[in-house]
């Protein structure tokens, strides 16, 4: 049973999988340019690169979704042809897609059984499938209930179903496409435990990510891709985060941008004991008081769901305030509509950029005037001035380095980073007095993240008051002048940057005052 070349699932292991000189051309783009890549049993090989660097293309070729124009794939030294996912599954290659390929209305067992021949012919054999799932779950320490409906599961559990699905189909080598993008820090830890066990058992794993600290933590080797070309492969132990970042972007990356001196001249935005409800009907904010000065970035830290969304929405007029007052440059804006708040020159970079930031099916140019479309020069007495809108769009595209085929391209066809640049351009160009930025770099690659942060700092230098809501503690620490920690709809404390350490903020985020080391809020 425990032969050297057999996995715990009973499947023969893949000692070495090698991709040689893989080239893939798309019209006008060389997506993969003679790339070599290999994975061995028992290792995590991380594939790093900016969006569009060719990571997905390479892995889609390995999984049989794309066909390479040149190059070959060798499995344990033997050349193989992978024409479709059916082939790759047969060879023992599994893929965990970034967007889960699960049917929420079906049970775990049904999702696993889908598409497989049944031992009972035309009838499903879910009992047998469930038994095998439990076996695999036991072997790989993946807690899962085969009879649970997928919609009832948390994101982390759904990911486990995906892993089980691949193992059930006999995967010896697993490609994990940005598996941590949707997970909470705790779920990431759990995933890493599972990944470590799988490599100990002889599986080979490909881990795609652009979160450097995760790559450094989990991988044995790292390959960096840029613009479709392989930059290099190194053992993880021989490389630093800084080197990796520079490699990926192709130039020096600054993790801690220069913030310059603080100059709090006036309180631009003041919240006095603000309260509001949440979508679940429970209190969202419970008496929040804070102020954001001109020329400062106030970071709002906290574990997801402690009132961050509600805070952004009350200030921008999107959510009804049930108590307290909000002042913008000394004038009461409590209860004003979003349009009225906009007129007072407050800009908003929303958390869900695809849902709230842009209209997906509108062009770049149209998205760029969403906030000001009723105003001169973009329109006059209800008629749009198309020439001015186009000129405006071209100007912003150049100024904010938006990578788009044209101003008429639909927003949904841009990459995440470029969509965020469209939002940034629209919100910043109007020279706002206050900017509310909610999770502004979530899901962006290093280059785009750096750009967004630079822009926020630039606004701060210009004297704009910036409220930065982020669940990324590194980001909060890198950009903020002061940091307010939200916990259950209240401000636990406001800490100057100089006094803020991750440990201190972590305790506050958990609802504990460091001085007292005891929970303050029930």
């Amino acid at each position, binding site marked *: 049973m425990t032969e050297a070349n057999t996995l715990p699932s009973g499947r023969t292991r893949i000692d070495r999988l090698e991709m040689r000189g893989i080239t893939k051309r798309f019209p006008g783009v060389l997506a993969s340019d003679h790339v070599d890549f290999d994975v061995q049993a028992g290792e995590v090989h991380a594939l790093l690169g900016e969006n569009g660097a060719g990571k997905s293309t390479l892995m889609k070729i390995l999984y049989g979704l794309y066909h390479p124009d040149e190059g070959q794939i060798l499995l344990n030294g033997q050349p193989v042809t992978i024409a479709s996912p059916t082939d790759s599954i047969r060879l023992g290659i599994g893929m965990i897609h970034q967007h889960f*390929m699960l*049917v929420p*209305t079906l049970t775990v067992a049904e999702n696993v059984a*889908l*598409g497989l*021949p049944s031992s009972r012919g*035309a*009838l*499903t054999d879910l009992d047998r499938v469930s038994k095998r799932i439990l076996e695999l779950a036991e072997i790989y320490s993946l807690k899962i209930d085969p009879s649970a409906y997928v919609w009832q599961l948390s994101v982390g559990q759904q990911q486990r179903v995906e892993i089980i699905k691949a193992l059930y189909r006999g995967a010896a080598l697993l490609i994990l496409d940005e598996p941590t993008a949707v997970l909470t820090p705790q779920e990431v830890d759990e995933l890493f435990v599972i990944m470590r066990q799988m490599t100990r058992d002889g599986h080979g794993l490909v881990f795609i990510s652009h979160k450097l600290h995760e790559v450094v933590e989990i991988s044995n080797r790292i390959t960096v891709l840029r613009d479709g070309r392989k930059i290099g492969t190194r053992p993880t132990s021989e490389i630093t985060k800084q080197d990796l970042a520079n490699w990926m972007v192709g130039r020096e990356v600054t993790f801690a941008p220069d913030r310059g001196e603080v100059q709090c001249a006036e309180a631009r935005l003041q919240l006095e004991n603000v309260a509001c409800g949440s979508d679940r009907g429970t209190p969202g904010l419970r008496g929040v008081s804070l102020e954001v000065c001109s020329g400062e970035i106030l970071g709002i830290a906290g574990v997801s769901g402690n009132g961050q969304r509600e805070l952004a929405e009350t200030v921008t007029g999107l959510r009804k305030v049930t108590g307290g007052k909000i002042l913008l440059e000394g004038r009461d804006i409590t209860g004003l509509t979003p349009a009225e708040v906009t007129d007072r020159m407050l800009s908003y970079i929303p958390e869900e950029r695809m849902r709230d930031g842009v209209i997906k099916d509108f062009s770049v140019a149209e998205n760029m005037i969403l906030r000001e479309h009723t105003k001169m020069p973009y329109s006059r007495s209800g008629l749009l001035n198309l020439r001015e809108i186009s000129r405006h769009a071209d100007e912003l595209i150049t100024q904010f380095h938006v990578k788009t085929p044209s101003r008429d391209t639909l927003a949904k066809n841009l990459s995440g980073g470029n969509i965020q640049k469209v939002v940034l351009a629209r919100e910043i160009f109007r020279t706002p007095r206050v900017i509310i930025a909610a999770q502004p770099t979530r899901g962006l690659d290093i280059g785009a993240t750096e750009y967004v942060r630079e822009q926020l700092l630039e606004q701060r230098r210009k004297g704009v008051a910036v409220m930065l809501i982020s669940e990324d503690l590194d980001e909060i620490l890198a950009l903020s002048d002061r940091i307010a920690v939200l916990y259950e709809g209240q401000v636990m404390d406001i800490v100057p940057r100089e006094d803020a350490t991750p440990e201190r903020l972590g305790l506050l985020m958990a609802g504990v005052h460091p001085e007292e080391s005891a929970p303050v809020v029930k």
Partner: protein
Amino acid sequence: MISDLLSVTVLIGILASGIRLATPYLYAAIGETFGQKSGVLNLGVEGQMLLGSFAAFYVTFKTGNLWLGLLTAMLVGALMGLAMAYVTVNLHAQQGISGIGFYLFGLGMSELLFQSLMGSVETIQGFPKVHIPVLSDIPGIGEIFFSQNVLVYGAYLLVPLAWFVLNKTTLGLKIRAVGENPDAADSLGVSVARVRYFTIILGGTLSGIAGASLSIALLNVFQQGMTSGQGFIAVALVYFGAWRPVGVLGGALLFSLVNSLQLWIQVLGIPIPSDIAVMMPYVLTILVLVATVSRVRAPSALSKPFERED
């Protein structure tokens, strides 16, 4: 007058014809359930029923063979299903609009064929009643449930059969997966196109039987536009039944019983204007749909064409 409705004979009559009248609803709505479960909204059911209805009647009228008539209706329905599948699966047509197109085609075509092939309304001898031994002798119950024709029995057998196929077979699993998340099904090697072709053609075939049940089993006559919106009600019943065969059965019975009631109201000469009486099932359709709309969730991929992302 109202008290006439309460006599035992009349009640048995209302129930018996209610059971009978549910037949076309059941065939059509179960067929539509399969389609919608796989993510295809077929609004052409009415057209498929009309053509099936004519085909069954004409072939039976000419050959005297009821089974041949039924088979022709199934074939006509299946062919219309095939066309619908090609348009929606391969050409990614907007399903609601193409369905209306197929309805209008069936409506016009059945009229044209009727005019050119027959010209006048004829009657035939439809499927005879089949009395189930012993059971049909039970007073009341026997007449209501066990003295019906073969297509009526078939309709009720279809309900558990459909449930079984949808929930207990690998085919059913594929159908449900394709209707909820075709990308997931595709990634596991399930052919979304093949599954949808199957369900749409099955739906068409069953709509053909639904039409035939009117012309050669229940009314034994063909008239222009004789389905009078039953195909559309069948679509509504799928929503009412929350995409479950048993739910569809409940809905079909509710409507056919109300229909039966209004027929008896007219027969007995109860002084309710007949136009109002005829409206009853339709008004009920709207009321029930309004009442149930928030309760149930349609298959996520319903009426969305599937295209693999590259």
